[in-house]
């Protein structure tokens, strides 16, 4: 993607993908409907186990959330983390510009009896009204790639956190600036970022860290999750192949596009791309953990 992209046009572009009928995503994302990397503890770990493990890791080990606390999930997808957190007694406000995603989450919340804990606001994050609200924790799982205004996004997230509050952010990144310059306009990356997602600006990790620093955060934790993404993509691909007829009936040609995206993604990890997670805290001194 070249030139400057307005945040509003980025949302319009990404909604084309995220507003595909939910059946498409139900056919391959697994029980939790999590559209991001899982955590595969053993060679035998299944997709559902990996996503469950990841949600637990994010909530307990990274955000250290306890029942009754408030979570802001920016770019909440179909509510994987929001619903998981609510099931553990946390209050959640999810943000997504996709109407079908919001409706899906609210329906699931009612069905599992946690609707009093879950609120989903529709819109682009920096335009959603959160005045006067504060949160113990925030998350951005695979969503900042869709936001060209990432510094504003992180500054606003920090303002909404209580002192000592934590942000968990995970994203796929180019391995470094040189590879970014060389590959960002390659056909494979343009296919994924423009044709599949409408707008995605993958950058080196240093860019995301710099944006978090400029927003005033302390970086307290960093994890390399690269090894887990190819397996996630392979598991999705297998499910997509099995649901080919159903998916193509909803959107002709969607199967082939998804499979091409997964294949490019799985091949690139470790060579041109990485998948990182970091935790940023709203505190001067940070927090050191053994």
């Amino acid at each position, binding site marked *: 993607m070249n030139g400057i992209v307005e945040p509003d046009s980025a949302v319009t572009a990404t909604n084309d993908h995220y507003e595909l009928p939910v059946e498409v995503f139900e056919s391959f994302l697994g029980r939790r409907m999590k559209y991001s990397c899982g955590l595969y503890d053993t060679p035998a770990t299944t997709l559902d186990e990996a996503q469950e493990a990841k949600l637990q890791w994010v909530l307990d080990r990274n955000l250290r959330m306890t029942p009754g606390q408030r979570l802001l999930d920016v770019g909440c997808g179909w509510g994987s983390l929001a619903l998981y957190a609510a099931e553990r007694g946390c209050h959640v406000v999810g943000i997504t510009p996709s109407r079908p995603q919001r409706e899906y989450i609210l329906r699931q919340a009612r069905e599992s009896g946690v609707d009093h804990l879950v609120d989903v606001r529709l819109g682009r994050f920096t335009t959603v009204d959160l005045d006067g609200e504060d949160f113990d924790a925030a998350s951005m799982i695979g969503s900042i790639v869709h936001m060209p205004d990432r510094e504003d996004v992180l500054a606003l997230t920090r303002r909404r956190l209580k*002192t000592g509050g934590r942000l968990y952010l995970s994203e796929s990144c180019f391995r470094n600036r040189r590879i970014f310059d060389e590959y960002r306009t390659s056909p494979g990356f343009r296919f994924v970022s423009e044709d599949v997602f409408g707008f995605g600006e993958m950058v080196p990790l240093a860019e995301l860290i710099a944006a978090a620093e400029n927003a*005033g955060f302390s970086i307290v934790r960093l994890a390399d999750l690269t090894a887990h993404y190819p397996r996630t993509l392979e598991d999705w691909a297998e499910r997509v192949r099995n649901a080919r007829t159903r998916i193509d009936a909803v959107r002709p040609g969607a199967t082939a596009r998804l499979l091409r995206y997964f294949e490019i993604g799985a091949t690139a990890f470790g060579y041109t791309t990485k998948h990182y997670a970091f935790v940023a805290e*709203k505190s*001067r001194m940070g927090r050191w953990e053994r």
Partner: protein
Amino acid sequence: MTTAREKLLDTVVGHLRAELPLDGHQIAESDVLADLPDADSVHMFRIAARLERQFHVEFDDGSLFAVRTVGQLVDLLASVTS
């Protein structure tokens, strides 16, 4: 009777006196912090840290760096302790 704001002013002045050689110096809300005797950025951060520790708060960086006068520091403190 002292108002809440007067109490905060007293607290701020107390920390200023502890950090800077202000004997005999009358402090007014309109005083520019950087013009107080011996004041430099190290002292200013020490005063901010004393206040943050005493009230268990962290000032917003943008607001903290924008503070020029004693009165503005009291305002900032009031905004996070109210």
